[in-house]
Protein backbone atom coordinates (compact mmCIF):
# COMPACT_ATOMS: atom_id res chain seq x y z
CA UNK A 1 0.00 0.00 0.00
CA UNK A 2 1.13 3.52 -0.74
CA UNK A 3 1.28 6.16 1.94
CA UNK A 4 2.77 9.54 2.70
CA UNK A 5 3.72 10.76 6.16
CA UNK A 6 4.43 14.32 7.16
CA UNK A 7 6.44 13.90 10.30
CA UNK A 8 5.48 17.17 11.99
CA UNK A 9 1.97 18.54 12.35
CA UNK A 10 3.37 21.94 13.40
CA UNK A 11 6.73 23.62 12.81
CA UNK A 12 7.65 26.96 14.36
CA UNK A 13 10.69 28.97 13.26
CA UNK A 14 11.87 32.53 13.65
CA UNK A 15 11.83 34.88 10.69
CA UNK A 16 15.14 34.70 8.83
CA UNK A 17 16.00 31.18 10.01
CA UNK A 18 15.93 27.99 7.90
CA UNK A 19 12.77 25.97 7.36
CA UNK A 20 12.62 22.16 7.20
CA UNK A 21 9.34 20.33 6.60
CA UNK A 22 9.71 16.57 6.56
CA UNK A 23 7.92 14.08 4.33
CA UNK A 24 8.37 10.33 3.92
CA UNK A 25 6.55 8.06 1.53
CA UNK A 26 6.17 4.38 0.92
CA UNK A 27 5.55 2.93 -2.50
CA UNK A 28 6.32 -0.05 -4.65
CA UNK A 29 6.34 2.12 -7.74
CA UNK A 30 8.19 5.15 -9.04
CA UNK A 31 6.38 8.12 -7.59
CA UNK A 32 5.95 11.72 -8.58
CA UNK A 33 6.15 13.97 -5.55
CA UNK A 34 4.67 17.40 -4.96
CA UNK A 35 4.61 20.05 -2.29
CA UNK A 36 1.59 22.32 -2.13
CA UNK A 37 1.02 25.33 0.12
CA UNK A 38 -2.35 26.49 1.41
CA UNK A 39 -2.69 29.94 2.92
CA UNK A 40 -5.69 30.61 5.19
CA UNK A 41 -8.98 30.56 3.32
CA UNK A 42 -7.20 29.88 0.04
CA UNK A 43 -6.88 26.94 -2.33
CA UNK A 44 -3.73 24.89 -2.79
CA UNK A 45 -0.81 26.36 -4.70
CA UNK A 46 1.89 24.16 -6.23
CA UNK A 47 5.33 24.87 -4.75
CA UNK A 48 7.35 22.28 -6.64
CA UNK A 49 7.23 18.88 -8.31
CA UNK A 50 9.64 15.94 -8.64
CA UNK A 51 9.30 13.63 -11.64
CA UNK A 52 12.49 11.52 -11.68
CA UNK A 53 14.70 14.16 -13.29
CA UNK A 54 17.08 16.03 -10.96
CA UNK A 55 16.80 14.90 -7.34
CA UNK A 56 17.04 18.48 -6.07
CA UNK A 57 13.98 20.39 -7.14
CA UNK A 58 13.69 24.16 -6.94
CA UNK A 59 10.27 25.69 -6.49
CA UNK A 60 8.68 29.07 -6.07
CA UNK A 61 9.34 31.55 -3.26
CA UNK A 62 12.81 30.15 -2.51
CA UNK A 63 11.65 26.67 -1.54
CA UNK A 64 13.39 23.52 -2.66
CA UNK A 65 13.12 19.81 -1.95
CA UNK A 66 15.44 16.86 -2.31
CA UNK A 67 14.28 13.42 -3.35
CA UNK A 68 16.22 10.69 -1.52
CA UNK A 69 15.19 7.28 -2.77
CA UNK A 70 17.27 5.40 -0.20
CA UNK A 71 15.49 7.21 2.61
CA UNK A 72 12.11 7.44 0.79
CA UNK A 73 12.04 11.08 1.76
CA UNK A 74 11.14 14.36 0.07
CA UNK A 75 11.80 17.06 2.63
CA UNK A 76 11.01 20.70 1.88
CA UNK A 77 13.51 23.41 2.82
CA UNK A 78 14.00 27.15 2.62
CA UNK A 79 17.17 28.94 3.74
CA UNK A 80 15.46 31.93 5.32
CA UNK A 81 11.86 32.05 6.47
CA UNK A 82 9.63 35.02 5.73
CA UNK A 83 6.47 36.00 7.56
CA UNK A 84 4.49 35.38 4.37
CA UNK A 85 5.54 31.70 4.49
CA UNK A 86 3.15 31.03 7.37
CA UNK A 87 0.68 28.52 5.94
CA UNK A 88 -0.26 24.85 5.74
CA UNK A 89 2.03 22.67 3.62
CA UNK A 90 1.00 19.38 2.05
CA UNK A 91 3.28 16.67 0.72
CA UNK A 92 1.54 14.79 -2.09
CA UNK A 93 2.55 11.60 -3.81
CA UNK A 94 1.34 10.32 -7.15
CA UNK A 95 1.93 6.67 -7.87
CA UNK A 96 2.16 5.53 -11.46
CA UNK A 97 0.12 2.41 -10.85
CA UNK A 98 -2.24 3.92 -8.30
CA UNK A 99 -5.94 3.42 -8.55
CA UNK A 100 -8.60 6.06 -8.83
CA UNK A 101 -7.99 9.34 -10.57
CA UNK A 102 -4.21 9.43 -10.47
CA UNK A 103 -3.25 7.57 -7.32
CA UNK A 104 -2.76 10.89 -5.53
CA UNK A 105 -2.21 10.58 -1.80
CA UNK A 106 -2.08 13.66 0.43
CA UNK A 107 -0.20 13.95 3.69
CA UNK A 108 -2.04 15.33 6.71
CA UNK A 109 -0.26 18.66 6.38
CA UNK A 110 2.30 20.65 8.37
CA UNK A 111 1.33 23.99 9.82
CA UNK A 112 4.27 26.37 9.52
CA UNK A 113 4.40 29.17 12.07
CA UNK A 114 6.81 32.07 11.64
CA UNK A 115 7.82 33.92 14.79
CA UNK A 116 8.79 37.58 14.35
Amino acid at each position, binding site marked *: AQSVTQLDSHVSVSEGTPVLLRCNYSSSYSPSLFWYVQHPNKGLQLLLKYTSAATLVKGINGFEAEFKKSETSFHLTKPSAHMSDAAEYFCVVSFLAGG*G*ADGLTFGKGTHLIIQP
Partner: protein
Amino acid sequence: EADIYQTPRYLVIGTGKKITLECSQTMGHDKMYWYQQDPGMELHLIHYSYGVNSTEKGDLSSESTVSRIRTEHFPLTLESARPSHTSQYLCASSEYGVQKTQYFGPGTRLLVL
Protein backbone atom coordinates in the same frame (compact mmCIF):
# COMPACT_ATOMS: atom_id res chain seq x y z
CA GLU B 1 -5.19 34.27 -17.97
CA ALA B 2 -5.69 30.53 -17.56
CA ASP B 3 -7.12 29.72 -14.18
CA ILE B 4 -9.59 27.67 -12.17
CA TYR B 5 -12.56 29.31 -10.49
CA GLN B 6 -14.97 28.26 -7.79
CA THR B 7 -18.20 29.91 -6.69
CA PRO B 8 -19.45 30.65 -4.18
CA ARG B 9 -16.39 31.06 -1.96
CA TYR B 10 -18.53 30.82 1.18
CA LEU B 11 -22.02 29.39 1.63
CA VAL B 12 -24.18 29.16 4.74
CA ILE B 13 -27.38 27.24 4.16
CA GLY B 14 -30.11 25.42 6.06
CA THR B 15 -30.62 21.69 6.31
CA GLY B 16 -32.55 20.13 3.45
CA LYS B 17 -31.67 22.72 0.83
CA LYS B 18 -30.32 21.77 -2.57
CA ILE B 19 -26.98 23.36 -3.41
CA THR B 20 -24.65 23.43 -6.39
CA LEU B 21 -20.99 24.32 -6.10
CA GLU B 22 -19.57 25.66 -9.33
CA CYS B 23 -16.12 24.95 -10.75
CA SER B 24 -14.77 26.24 -14.05
CA GLN B 25 -11.30 26.14 -15.60
CA THR B 26 -9.89 27.96 -18.57
CA MET B 27 -6.76 25.85 -18.96
CA GLY B 28 -8.24 23.39 -21.43
CA HIS B 29 -7.64 20.49 -19.06
CA ASP B 30 -9.42 17.21 -19.68
CA LYS B 31 -9.34 15.93 -16.11
CA MET B 32 -11.13 17.56 -13.21
CA TYR B 33 -11.50 16.63 -9.54
CA TRP B 34 -13.44 17.46 -6.39
CA TYR B 35 -11.82 17.11 -2.98
CA GLN B 36 -13.31 17.48 0.48
CA GLN B 37 -11.17 18.94 3.25
CA ASP B 38 -12.24 19.15 6.89
CA PRO B 39 -10.49 21.80 9.04
CA GLY B 40 -6.88 20.90 9.75
CA MET B 41 -7.10 17.69 7.78
CA GLU B 42 -5.80 16.31 4.51
CA LEU B 43 -7.74 16.34 1.26
CA HIS B 44 -9.88 13.42 0.23
CA LEU B 45 -10.93 12.82 -3.37
CA ILE B 46 -14.72 12.52 -3.74
CA HIS B 47 -15.24 12.80 -7.52
CA TYR B 48 -13.22 13.01 -10.71
CA SER B 49 -13.73 13.15 -14.45
CA TYR B 50 -11.59 12.16 -17.42
CA GLY B 51 -13.51 14.43 -19.79
CA VAL B 52 -16.96 15.29 -21.09
CA ASN B 53 -19.64 12.81 -19.98
CA SER B 54 -17.17 11.03 -17.70
CA THR B 55 -17.68 11.00 -13.92
CA GLU B 56 -16.19 8.67 -11.33
CA LYS B 57 -16.39 8.34 -7.57
CA GLY B 58 -13.25 8.98 -5.59
CA ASP B 59 -11.73 7.39 -2.54
CA LEU B 60 -14.06 9.02 -0.01
CA SER B 61 -17.73 8.19 -0.22
CA SER B 62 -19.89 11.26 -0.72
CA GLU B 63 -23.62 11.91 -1.07
CA SER B 64 -22.89 14.59 -3.63
CA THR B 65 -23.15 14.15 -7.39
CA VAL B 66 -21.27 15.73 -10.28
CA SER B 67 -21.75 16.28 -13.97
CA ARG B 68 -19.42 17.07 -16.88
CA ILE B 69 -21.37 18.40 -19.83
CA ARG B 70 -18.68 20.82 -20.93
CA THR B 71 -14.92 20.43 -20.71
CA GLU B 72 -14.45 23.58 -18.67
CA HIS B 73 -17.29 23.06 -16.18
CA PHE B 74 -17.57 20.50 -13.35
CA PRO B 75 -20.35 21.37 -10.88
CA LEU B 76 -21.01 19.47 -7.65
CA THR B 77 -24.55 19.11 -6.31
CA LEU B 78 -25.97 18.17 -2.93
CA GLU B 79 -29.69 17.37 -3.26
CA SER B 80 -30.40 17.80 0.45
CA ALA B 81 -27.73 19.45 2.54
CA ARG B 82 -27.06 18.19 6.08
CA PRO B 83 -24.77 19.50 8.85
CA SER B 84 -22.44 16.55 8.17
CA HIS B 85 -21.75 18.12 4.76
CA THR B 86 -20.12 21.11 6.41
CA SER B 87 -16.60 21.22 5.01
CA GLN B 88 -14.35 22.88 2.46
CA TYR B 89 -14.68 21.67 -1.11
CA LEU B 90 -11.75 22.12 -3.48
CA CYS B 91 -11.88 21.72 -7.24
CA ALA B 92 -8.80 20.88 -9.32
CA SER B 93 -7.89 20.15 -12.92
CA SER B 94 -5.00 18.58 -14.80
CA GLU B 95 -3.88 17.52 -18.23
CA TYR B 96 -4.77 14.01 -19.28
CA GLY B 97 -2.18 11.38 -18.35
CA VAL B 98 -0.55 9.94 -15.28
CA GLN B 99 1.26 11.94 -12.62
CA LYS B 100 0.21 15.26 -14.09
CA THR B 101 0.21 18.31 -11.85
CA GLN B 102 -3.19 19.21 -10.44
CA TYR B 103 -4.08 22.90 -10.22
CA PHE B 104 -6.52 23.91 -7.51
CA GLY B 105 -9.24 26.48 -7.24
CA PRO B 106 -9.66 28.68 -4.14
CA GLY B 107 -12.26 26.39 -2.59
CA THR B 108 -15.82 26.74 -1.29
CA ARG B 109 -16.40 26.75 2.45
CA LEU B 110 -19.81 25.23 3.14
CA LEU B 111 -21.64 25.54 6.45
CA VAL B 112 -24.93 23.69 6.81
CA LEU B 113 -27.01 24.73 9.80
